[in-house]
């Protein structure tokens, strides 16, 4: 399990999710098998068929001062909260500014800003718009704000690949360090898309669960009765660092960010390619990129969104590309689907599963769907073996984007 490239390690974690306002509370809720999904109480709920979602557990207004919050889109607020936690967790490293980078993306960007601003424009006119409307709605806004805060002059980037965004950002961050351009990168994804127009639009695709009588049972990846995904919101960011830089400053190291595999389906704009060939290619490529074999991978945090189309195909692809042996879990059963934020928080969960040697269970799998031949962790968390092991986080997105990120124990 080694390559001759620059080794990249993970030295900081930060998140705000439907399960908690930080990494520790989120992880603890995951191990307890709690659901972060709640009925929506907004007045518009009657206008949409899916009447529940995973709102963040801690409102950003409780953490970010009002003068700062008013110039940030909600997705940017989540990202800054997660970035601050990750940066503190990493020990606020002193880095030469031109050797420090940021890669933080969002699937949809400042969608609530756009829609609210358009209402303001129509009813009150252009000069009533906040002068921060543009930096709030642009999908690279979160990356820009984080870059300003930590003084990152080595490059600030925003990946956009729908639900693969967060994982792609982490992959790009790994590549930035390997290429020698920078030593440290803050990377991950954020999303704040709980708005009636988004729910209506996803519902128009028939992609969302409408299990309105049992919201906490609605996100049920791998279960025969699944009927769509459940929208969540939040952000998950990691601090990536060259091993040399991390060791030199005596940093705590969670895991090795061992590699990334990308592919694209080139099949349909929103539906997964039914053979799973593209998903398999991403996983084969991550093994190659990380210098790992299928046998090294003991855990997969699956993309599995609880839609009828994708979950089973992914498990077949895992079996083909990696093997039937890894412990597979779908944490979206508890967090809901954070879209562009998913790859961020799920990479964090993959890393913590390695460091704690414990895989959270997928909740709501009452009746495992036919054709699933991998080891799905259900009911209770399961132990990972001792010794050097590796894990993969899968993230796939509308547009046919497939991303797999590999982490290994230190």
């Amino acid at each position, binding site marked *: 399990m080694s390559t001759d490239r620059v080794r990249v390690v993970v030295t900081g974690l930060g998140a705000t999710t439907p399960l908690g306002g930080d990494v520790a509370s989120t992880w603890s809720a995951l191990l307890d098998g709690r659901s972060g999904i709640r009925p929506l109480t907004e007045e518009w709920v009657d206008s949409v068929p899916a009447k529940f979602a995973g709102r963040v557990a801690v409102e950003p207004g409780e953490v970010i*001062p*009002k*003068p*700062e919050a*008013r*110039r940030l889109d909600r997705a940017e607020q989540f990202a800054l909260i997660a970035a601050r936690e990750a940066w503190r967790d990493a020990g606020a490293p002193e880095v030469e500014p031109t050797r420090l980078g940021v890669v933080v993306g969002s699937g949809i960007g400042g969608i609530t800003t756009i829609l609210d601003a358009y209402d303001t424009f129509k009813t009150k006119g252009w*000069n*009533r718009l*906040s*002068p*921060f409307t543009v930096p709030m709605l642009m999908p690279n806004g979160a990356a820009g704000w984080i870059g300003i805060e930590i003084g990152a002059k080595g490059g600030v980037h925003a990946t956009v690949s729908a639900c693969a965004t967060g994982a792609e950002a982490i992959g790009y961050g790994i590549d930035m360090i390997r290429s020698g351009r920078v030593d440290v990168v803050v990377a991950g994804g954020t999303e704040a898309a709980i708005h009636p127009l988004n729910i209506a639009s996803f519902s128009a695709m028939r992609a969302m669960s409408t299990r309105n009588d049992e919201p906490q049972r609605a996100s049920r990846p791998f279960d025969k009765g699944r009927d769509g995904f459940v929208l969540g919101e939040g952000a998950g960011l990691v601090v990536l660092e060259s091993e040399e830089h991390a060791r030199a400053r005596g940093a705590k190291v969670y895991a090795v960010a061992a590699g990334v595999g990308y592919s694209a389906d080139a099949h349909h704009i929103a539906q997964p390619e039914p053979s799973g060939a593209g998903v398999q290619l991403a996983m084969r490529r991550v093994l190659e990129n990380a210098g790992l074999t299928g046998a090294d991978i003991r855990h997969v945090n699956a993309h599995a969104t609880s839609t009828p189309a994708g979950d089973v195909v992914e498990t077949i692809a895992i079996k083909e590309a990696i093997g039937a042996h890894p412990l597979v879990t779908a944490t979206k059963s508890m967090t809901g689907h954070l879209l562009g934020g998913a790859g961020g928080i799920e990479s964090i969960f993959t890393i913590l599963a390695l460091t704690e040697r414990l895989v959270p269970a997928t909740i709501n799998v009452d009746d495992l769907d036919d054709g699933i031949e991998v080891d799905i962790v259900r009911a209770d968390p399961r132990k990972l073996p001792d010794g050097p092991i590796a894990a993969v986080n899968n993230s796939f997105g509308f547009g046919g984007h497939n991303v797999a990120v590999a982490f290994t124990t230190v």
Partner: protein
Amino acid sequence: MAVTEQEILAGLGKIINEITGIPASEVTLEKSFVDDLDIDSLSMVEIAVAAQDEFGSEIPDDQLKHLKTVKDVVNFIQN
């Protein structure tokens, strides 16, 4: 009924505090928005719009760029 300088200053202090987080007590007549209060041009636009609502006197963009200090804005609103 004319508004006094002190009333405008107090109102302006409140607006600036809400928009930027700077304590209203630091908003005094001689302060420069850029050099002393570190307020950027985008926030100045917000402050100008809020001041228009509060005091009813429009500050056109070509005037706004000449208003460098708190006293400049107070005088503009008074006149």
